[in-house]
């Protein structure tokens, strides 16, 4: 016998739970995007590209060190690539209008996509996850698999660590201070360049981590970043720019919204997140938890 008798209630419950799982993934990506946006004023269009890099690194090293090894190694490797990109390409543009870095990362996204296609080919690559994770918990709750729970756990740990980092470490306090007033932070003798580099690396680390997790569940392809970037981007706008809790809320909200819409009006399941963004921008331009003036 089913846990709940009314099939509609069950369907709703399933989709809310499922939406939270999907949303958790967007959160992971959006947090990295948000960190970089807050401190470096860079809208990182190449974030999806870094996700793809993380996924392909995992694919390439899995045969040697297994899935768990790849999960540990691929994100920091991606972060190192991010560090180099920041130092060589993005840093020279900090002094200019944000449009410059936007255009640069926009181009970079193309380069990464084509580069991966050149190296690994356009055909998707199979990534196998440990068999015990690839099981549903029960026949009724088939959509809650070990892997998806694991993914949510990783997201929760990452969010918690990020919170501790920003709240209690010197680096985190500087990042937050820099987000509010970079000029004063610099005047206090803090190496702002280094701060930005490290912050960028943390953001790209999260992108790399998203990439490894996504590769276990989706097809690993050079284009996979594009489809995942947009929802993350919207999560930030809905949640409020400059607010990491806002990003968290935004990611979960759009996950649930698109899941629920898929039940009642499947054709709109993709459009609904854009509608949400439009409504938030009209009613509360700073986003749900955004600080006043962040976007003005």
């Amino acid at each position: 016998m089913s846990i709940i008798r009314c099939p509609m209630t069950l369907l709703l419950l399933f989709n809310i739970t499922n939406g939270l799982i999907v949303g958790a993934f967007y959160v992971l990506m959006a947090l990295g995007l948000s960190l970089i946006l807050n401190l470096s004023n860079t809208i990182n269009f190449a974030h999806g590209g870094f996700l793809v890099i993380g996924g392909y690194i995992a694919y390439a090293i899995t045969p040697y060190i297994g899935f768990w090894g790849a999960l540990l190694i691929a994100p920091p490797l991606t972060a190192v690539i991010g560090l180099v990109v920041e130092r060589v390409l993005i840093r020279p543009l900090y002094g200019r209008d944000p449009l410059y870095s936007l255009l640069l990362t926009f181009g970079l996204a193309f380069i990464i996509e084509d580069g991966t296609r050149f190296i690994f080919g356009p055909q998707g690559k199979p990534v196998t996850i440990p068999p015990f994770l690839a099981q549903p918990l029960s026949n009724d709750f088939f959509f809650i698999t070990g892997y998806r729970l694991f993914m949510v756990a990783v997201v929760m740990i990452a969010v918690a660590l990020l919170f501790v980092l920003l709240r209690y470490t010197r680096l985190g306090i500087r990042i937050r201070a820099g987000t509010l007033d970079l000029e004063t932070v610099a005047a206090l003798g803090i190496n702002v360049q280094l701060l930005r580099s490290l912050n960028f690396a943390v953001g790209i680390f999260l992108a790399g981590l998203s990439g490894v997790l996504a590769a276990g569940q989706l097809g690993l392809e050079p284009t996979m970043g594009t489809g995942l970037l947009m929802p993350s981007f919207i999560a930030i706008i809905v949640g409020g720019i400059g607010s990491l809790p806002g990003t968290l809320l935004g990611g979960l909200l759009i996950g649930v919204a698109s899941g629920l819409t898929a039940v009642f009006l499947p054709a709109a399941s993709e459009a609904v997140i854009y509608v949400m963004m439009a409504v938030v921008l009209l009613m509360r331009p700073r986003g749900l938890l955004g600080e006043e003036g962040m976007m003005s």
Partner: protein
Amino acid sequence: MTSFPPRIERRTLLKGAAALGAFQLASPFIIQARGETAVRIGMVDPLTGVYAAPAGNEVMGAKLAIEQMNAKGGILGRQVELLVEDSANDVGTGVQKARKLIERDGVNFMIGDVNSGIAAAIAQVTSEKKILHIVSGGHTDSITGKDCKWNVFRVCNTTRMEANSVSSVLYSKYGKKWHFITPDYAFGHTLYDACTDDLKKLGGTVTGNELTPLGTTDFSAYLIKARAANPDVMILLVQGSDMINCLKQVVQFGLDKQIHVAGTQQELESLAALPPEARIGVWMFEWYWKQPGVPGVEKFVADIRKVNKGNVPTARHWFGYASAMSFALVANKEKSLDAVKLAGALENFELPDDVKLQPNKVYYRKGDHQLMTSAFVGEAQSKGKDDPEDLYRVDEIVPGNKTAPTVEETGCKVQWPA
């Protein structure tokens, strides 16, 4: 010295968001051109986006054909060039690229597109410009059905042919309650219609249809709905990366252990990108590389391996190859490049052994210009026995004229130019 740029304005961010929408519009991609009087074949295919893998393979097949025909003297003694453009899986871009190939590059023939919607739109352009056009890999019925054109021929199957080839097998093997996961565009709609028509004739019922946007990454919400409808079999009509994402999630959710999972069109590109446990189900292939004893196949496989990092050809390689070869064969036979004359000659034109690469008779049918090509009905296998790429077991090769509806049923009435 640190500088302090102004804060990002909301408008900047929004402009950025708009720009992201245009992200998939990539720059053109042109392949070599030499000789002044070469015959030019234009090819528009989605080299970026969800169909990048099949499109890339079609181009590779066409390139091989060009190489082989040039080695044998080209078309009418002139060398042949292939000009490739990326439609980026977008109708507007595809049409623009087709116009550019015709108006600026002066191509004599046109091939494309993998995406049915784009193929149909390009067909409008080629018929207006009187260019002989072969649709290599877009399956929607109307292209050789109600919207058929005098200048448009098609190599791949129609969705109707695909459904007809495999429906009765699915019905007898898996059961009569079907639930569909359908891509929400021209190809998916006509394939769904064809399948449901077959199912009704067989006496089965449809428990529901999940229309999923092209490029969907997470199928969980649709799968939850499909599972709740309690069907005997879940029919996946999605293609490309959508197929990979969907099938991967189906298997991780263990749905294949609760209900049957199968479909119509399956491709080697998709099976190869899936982990072994997700290579399941009964499907139809449009061409398969392992055909012991069939003339020409072994050589074709060897030729493609040379240019494909050692990998075997897929149906898409054959589509590109057969499309380009058809132009050379008919033009050399008629000793002409005149589109109207060649279109007339292609009617009931039979492909020779070294081009058709399959046992049954293969010809462009007079009346709707659809190639009567076979369906390779069989089952996916998790691992190949002798070759890691032997991921499919062919049970039956059904000839095209057995799966295709009659010309009258297609609704095609070719209007020839005055």
